[in-house]
């Protein structure tokens, strides 16, 4: 199994990209670069390995279907997670890369989700403390509180990406060296299988039991026919 170590410039580019992706998820501008399929593809392009970016992007895009970001629901953050996953997979080629990359991405996604919750609590406290200034109708106070939230989210996104990239860097010596070929295969099967399941179960929740279920069944039949036809 061949391995590749990215340069410092590439790591910095990944950090900047992961930060932009993390900020896009909620704060600015929600143009969906935070979507794993986009985050992964660009991370792959930064690493000069678009196919790996696309593959990990699809794994986490499926995981994303498990989430419906309505109200104040808590969810993992798969954008910077995908960036870290692609960095891991690129450094450890083949099926080992796929399994390790997904594992690192899952852990980073979990950290990202926790960080979002912490940020919202911090923002709540700051908004609570600024209540008098906000009630006075001072637009400068309003903009200051809001800009502070944006800045904190950028710092949060950078930290989550950095954690992901450190995990990517640690994954190889800690796990890749200890894993046999069969172990690497098992890890890839477990994580990719879980992602396919999460995508399918999440979609069914989204579709519900109404008339859309029929459309889903029609689509599924068409997709299966396409798979058979392409073989």
């Amino acid at each position, binding site marked *: 199994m061949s391995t590749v170590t990215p340069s410092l410039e590439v790591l910095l580019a990944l950090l900047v990209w992961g930060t932009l992706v993390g900020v896009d998820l*909620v*704060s*600015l*501008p*929600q*143009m*969906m670069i935070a*979507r794993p*399929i*986009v985050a992964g*593809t660009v991370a792959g392009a930064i690493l000069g390995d678009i196919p790996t970016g696309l*593959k990990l*992007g699809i794994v986490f895009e499926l995981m994303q279907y*498990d989430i419906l970001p*309505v109200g*104040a629901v808590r969810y993992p953050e798969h954008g910077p997670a995908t960036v870290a996953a692609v960095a891991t997979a690129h450094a450890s080629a083949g*099926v080992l890369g796929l399994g390790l990359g997904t*594992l690192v991405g*899952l852990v980073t996604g979990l950290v990202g*989700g926790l960080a979002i919750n912490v940020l*919202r609590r911090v*923002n*709540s406290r700051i908004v609570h403390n600024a209540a008098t200034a*906000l009630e*006075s109708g*001072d*637009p400068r106070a*309003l*903009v200051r509180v*809001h*800009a502070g*939230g*944006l800045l904190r989210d950028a710092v949060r996104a950078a930290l989550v990406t950095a954690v992901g990239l450190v995990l990517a860097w640690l994954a190889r010596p800690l796990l890749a060296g200890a894993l*046999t070929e*069969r*172990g690497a*295969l*098992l890890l*890839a*099967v*477990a*994580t990719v*299988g*879980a*992602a*396919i*399941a999460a*995508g399918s*179960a999440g979609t069914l929740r989204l*579709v519900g039991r109404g*008339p*859309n279920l029929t*459309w*889903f069944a029609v*689509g*599924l039949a*068409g*997709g*299966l026919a*396409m798979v058979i036809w392409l073989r």
Partner: protein
Amino acid sequence: MASVKVSLARALLRLFAVQGSYNYERMLGVGVGVAEEPLLRDLADGKYGPAVARGAHFFNAHPYLIGLAVGAAARAEHDGAPPDQIERLREALCGPLGSVGDRLVWAGWLPFLSALAMTGVALGGGWIAVAVFLIVYNIGHVALRWWALQAGWTHGTRVSVALHHPVLQNATTLMGSAMALAVGFALPITAQYLASAFGSWTRLALAVVAVVAFLLLRLRGDRVNGLRLALVFAALALIAGWIWP
């Protein structure tokens, strides 16, 4: 007239960051106040401050449709509506804007295009499929934000007229069906694409893992989510790989 267009453009730009200070106390309220402020600048001195303060009160809705509330509340302030009526208008808009936006975008437009992009990638479209996704998605995204702000500003306190517009209602229904069809089509093709990294026997194992995980998520979905389950499966795989070298 020109100054209204400039103010609307400023409000639109600020709407892209409406969730920047997301918090559990006022939810998106502060962001809504920031977005509404350019539209309030030409109010008389005694009205401007209280209007800005009202704009930053609790608010929660779908971020792409919040422009409807921003435009409507600002217009109501200009029309001299009583403060309690403006507060009631804001409260009344939270639920419908959230519900319509979630169904139209989060459960429609976004997964529909994401599924097409995944299908495109799986069928060999590569990064071009991803680029097309990003461009097409954002045409709809920006158009929706701009329409919402303009409609809110046009209708003011009678903004429900815009919410009940047949195009919006039909689009919500249509996107749900299109999403279901597209994602249903994408799932087997995407699974096949990911399985191509494995040998034939391993593909069988992948199918078994996917089915078991799917059943667990369907049957115990109240306690288990995809991320936790994937992490548990990964831990089991690492243990199995260590025991069975």
